[in-house]
């Protein structure tokens, strides 16, 4: 954990879309007593030590709701300005892009350069629904050595197309697409860690634990 438990607060952003209960419950399971707050109020984002953007639904409605609730600016301040650890899940990953192509072209948050477009499943059934393993591409504290052997739960039709530099894990279904991305403090998964049993909870745990801790563990274990 970064800092003392007393100053920590995990804020799960409620923007009218998403399996908020499941996400909050999964964080409660791994947070070791740290408060988990589900909120759609802009002022609550300032109180957060960790921000989570879940999401079930489509890109267009997602951005509309974030704007309507006046959450875009506070997100920019807390995530880009103050560098708070941020985790986007499923639609929460896609909204990080500059542009989304679901139900017409729409501007996203633009935290990660890229474009959200339909998955080219190459004849396989679409949406991509179910459990699949991932390929780890880049070192990140979100995953550990066990992560690449596990299956995670995916349910989506769209994928983020972004520079390979930001891809921490990939998945192949008709084509290879980002299963997880990271840019500094901004992390996101296309799959649902909150619905991926123990393997998914490990990812949430690693997100909360932060980079410093897992780096030193890696350092020790490499000897």
């Amino acid at each position, binding site marked *: 954990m970064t800092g003392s438990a007393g100053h920590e607060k995990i804020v799960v952003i409620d923007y009218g879309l998403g399996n908020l209960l499941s996400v909050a419950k999964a964080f409660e399971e791994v947070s070791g007593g740290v408060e988990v707050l589900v909120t759609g109020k802009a002022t609550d984002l300032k109180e957060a030590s960790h921000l989570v953007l879940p999401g079930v639904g489509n890109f267009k409605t997602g951005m509309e709701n974030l704007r309507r609730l006046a959450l875009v600016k506070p997100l920019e301040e807390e995530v880009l300005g103050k560098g708070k650890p941020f985790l986007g899940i499923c639609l929460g990953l896609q909204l990080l892009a500059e542009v989304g192509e679901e139900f017409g072209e729409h501007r996203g948050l633009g935290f990660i350069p890229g474009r959200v477009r339909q998955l080219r499943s190459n004849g396989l059934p*679409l949406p991509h*629904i179910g459990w699949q393993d991932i390929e780890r591409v880049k070192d990140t504290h979100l995953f550990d050595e066990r992560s690449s052997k596990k299956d995670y739960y995916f349910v989506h039709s769209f994928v983020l197309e972004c520079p390979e530099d930001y891809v921490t894990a990939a998945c192949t279904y008709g084509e290879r697409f980002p299963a997880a991305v990271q840019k500094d403090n901004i992390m996101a998964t296309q799959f649902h860690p909150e619905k991926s049993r123990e393997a998914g909870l490990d990812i949430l745990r690693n997100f909360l634990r932060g980079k410093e801790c897992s780096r030193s563990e890696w350092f020790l274990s490499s000897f």
Partner: protein
Amino acid sequence: MLKVRVVPVLLLKEGRMIKTKQFKFYKDTGDPMLTVRVYDAQGADELAILDISASVEGRTQWLEIISQSARECFIPITVGGGIRSVEDARRAFSAGADRVSVSTAAVENPDLINGLAETFGRANTMVCIDAKLDRNGKYRVSSASGRKMDFRGVVPWAKEVSDRGAGEILLHFVDRDGMMTGYDLELCAEVVSGVSVPVMVCGGVGTLQDLVDGVLIGKASAVAAASIFHFTDQSPIKAHSYMQDKGVPVCLA
């Protein structure tokens, strides 16, 4: 590689879990939450919690069971039965559902499928097709728990619902429900080849080989079953290892 999902189905009526035969002859099968915990521990890839309550109290209990399941299990939960509007679906999602399934309401008001897909995303919108044999031995779409026969054919309806935004089709064989004689593999394969969305198949599983056949012959993306898990000593774990031996990609614990 994407794994084939093994999905136990829980059918609820007025807060109790039941099992039917051909959508009739209700039999009480016990406490739903106990069962949810068992299936979760046994490695189920997803749970389908369907409700056929007639009363408001029954519906409320169903939402409570969804909510409790979502608190205890970190696996996807698909729910259906009482959803007749976008607002009903919103309540189910708020309670903890990951995906919703509509059947009768979709037959009566197909625009509901478009509404659900636009609001909650295609991937989270499932349409259940209750396929039933008519007097001439031809499959047709039925509604109202198999009591009403519709003029639609199963394959054309499957195409229409996927065009309207269903992200997955749950193909349910009314005549085989509870009979444990296997899926109708021919109809399953026909529906699968008629649509581009994944198809989950349900109704009739009596042996683990039926699950394998559903995938290898029926070409289903997911296999659902109730009786075999309720009434025999088979479990999702055993199903996974049997399917793995037969060359079906599954999640192994």
